[in-house]
């Protein structure tokens, strides 16, 4: 569970798509005692580069040092902190709940409220797919917890700056 006493930060890191890059980046965090809460890596438009979105918790002073250390890595082109800006932030979650015909309609009601899709349905379970900002997924998780959650998978958040700002 995320430590709510610390601020959750969101970093967008643009890197060369080379072996070892992820290990170098992970080391910058672990050496300074920061915990990575979520990490999304995917190829950028130009396949030579990758985009990482990293959510992590820790004190802001330490984060400043982390951003500088990340920027210093040879394979990192750019590292931007999106914690305090108005970027678009999205995450996808898949939640498998145990539900039979008795509770199904209530579950579907909650799902509809959060704009979920039902992507799998069996007599004893269903999988809900939800997309939104992480708070929304947290809220859904809380509401749907009245049913037994069998499994929960979240992608971790991705972020993109609005308008002409670069991510």
């Amino acid at each position: 569970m995320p430590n709510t006493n610390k601020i959750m930060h969101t970093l967008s890191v643009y890197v060369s798509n080379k072996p070892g890059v992820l290990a170098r980046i992970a080391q910058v965090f672990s050496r300074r005692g920061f915990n990575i809460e979520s990490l999304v890596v995917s190829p950028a438009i130009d396949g030579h580069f990758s985009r990482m979105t990293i959510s992590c918790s820790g004190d802001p002073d330490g984060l400043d040092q982390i951003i500088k250390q990340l920027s210093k890595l040879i394979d990192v082109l750019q590292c931007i902190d999106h914690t305090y800006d108005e970027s678009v932030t999205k995450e996808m979650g898949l939640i498998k709940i145990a539900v039979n015909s008795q509770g199904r309609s209530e579950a579907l009601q909650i799902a509809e409220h959060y704009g979920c899709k039902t992507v799998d349905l069996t007599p004893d379970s269903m999988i809900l797919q939800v997309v939104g900002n992480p708070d929304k997924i947290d809220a859904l998780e809380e509401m749907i917890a009245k049913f037994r959650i069998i499994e929960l998978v979240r992608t971790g958040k991705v972020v993109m700056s609005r308008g002409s700002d670069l991510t």
Partner: protein
Amino acid sequence: MANKAMEGGQAIIRCLENEGVEYIFGYSGGAAIPIFDALITTETKINFVLTRHEQGAAHMADGYARATGKPAVVLVTSGPGATNTLTGIMTAHMDSVPMIVLTGQSVSWMLGKDAFQEADIFGITMPVIKHSYLLKDANDIPRIIREAFHISTTGRPGPVLIDIPKDISAGPCTADLHAEMDLPGYTPVTTVNKDTILEIAEALAKSSRPLILAGHGAMIAGADDALRALAEKSKIPVTNTLLGKGVFPETHKLSLGMLGMHGTAYANKAICECDLLLNIGSRFDDRILGKPDQFCKNATIIHIDIDAAEIGKMIQPQIACVADARVALEELIKHVPILETREWRKHLDGYKTRYPLKFKRQGSLKMQHIIDEFYKLSDGKACVATDVGQHQMWAAQFYKNDSRYNWLSSGGAGTMGFGLPACIGAAFGRPNDIHICFVGDGGFQMTFFELATAALYKLPIKIVVLNNHYLGMVRQWQELFYDDRKSGVDLEGNPDFVKLAESFGIKGFNLRRPGDVKRVLQNALSYNDGPCLINCEVEKTDNVFPMIPAGAAIEDMLIEPPTSKLEKPTGST
């Protein structure tokens, strides 16, 4: 234009030649045989030095680079050969020393399968290296070697490792040897923000008690001339870090010598009393800060550093300037006024008179006496390498340096065993200079096997073993802070170092009495048939002062031995 196929190993040697490499220090082994073979088949002019241990090779390359400003190459095999370089790589990394490390590796298709002598050196070195490569295609050799040298020697320098599977070094390479670099994420800063420089000049103009702190960054940048011009024009006193020794002449009347844990009392007092601190290329190491929140708390702090990650890491400056020290100072000097600092300098000169560095020449034989005498006999012009511990601090205090590249000491890492191989590396780079290696009996025994290398090449080095039969610095802490409980510091069982030297064919001298110091050292200095070793039986329980206990404020510096029991220090070491 593609070349006709050569072996990967041959391409590696040709690329090293293109980079101007003069020396490769190394140790052979199975996975590196194709590269060692290429040393012969290419008939290269690069000198290969076979060391006695891979750690020795890494420290030699380090010493060579510190003494010449040019990178050398370390060439070792896979597995233990590679891991034995680790301490040397970490030492170079901590002190921003350029170094190229080539490691042989198992064949590509065995990677990760626990092959004989396979170690993931790419992964193992990651936290202690500037950058690293795992070669996967022989045609990448020219580009990667080019990039490795560029990365290692520019910006804030550091070691770079290239791990080379045996099938790559033995396989064909048809690539153009003059390949383009591809480093979109690496753009070291080469210019300086003029507005920041004007801001610094303005702050200086308002200061009445300014102080310059010169660090290794100023040395690496070659900022010595600009620094001297600035200090002399504006009449600003200068203190230097351990690794900054020589970037500003320590015999200059504006010099306060080294500051920090065992720095001069007057440098540390100047830090406490200055109203402006201009830090040029020092990373505010914990050895000079004392208590970070008390450090220079009434002064305007200006920090010039080429590494943006150093700004605000330990100390938040009022003015930050991310730039090469020489570029910054050459711009700054155009704008600084002449400052009225006569009162301030007079005040500091008072401290110099009141609290000089001192020792007794009578009684038992002192390390300080030997270092001081060597300083005088060599006119302060020797290239000095040290190991780590008490002798290192006394060497820093008493062997004053007036020019750069003459002080080789493991500062950040504090690596025992560094001194002898570093001195050997320096002697390869500058065979016509005098090289003095001050080592303790502890650190010397960690790498003394490199005496063979020194003897074989008849290097002009004077190995001064300051032998107190103790791990003296730890013993000093135990005496001062742990009720003199000596734990793990008694080096009983030391060999006869003169006999040891003689067994390598190296001339040995014994020195036991203060009255003999001058005569023995003169004999050692005039000995010119290769290396010689002077075993100095010094006082066993002498302590280094001044001293700022780790984690204590600089104001709490002990100038003299304390008369009452001290609390255990709060700092790390």
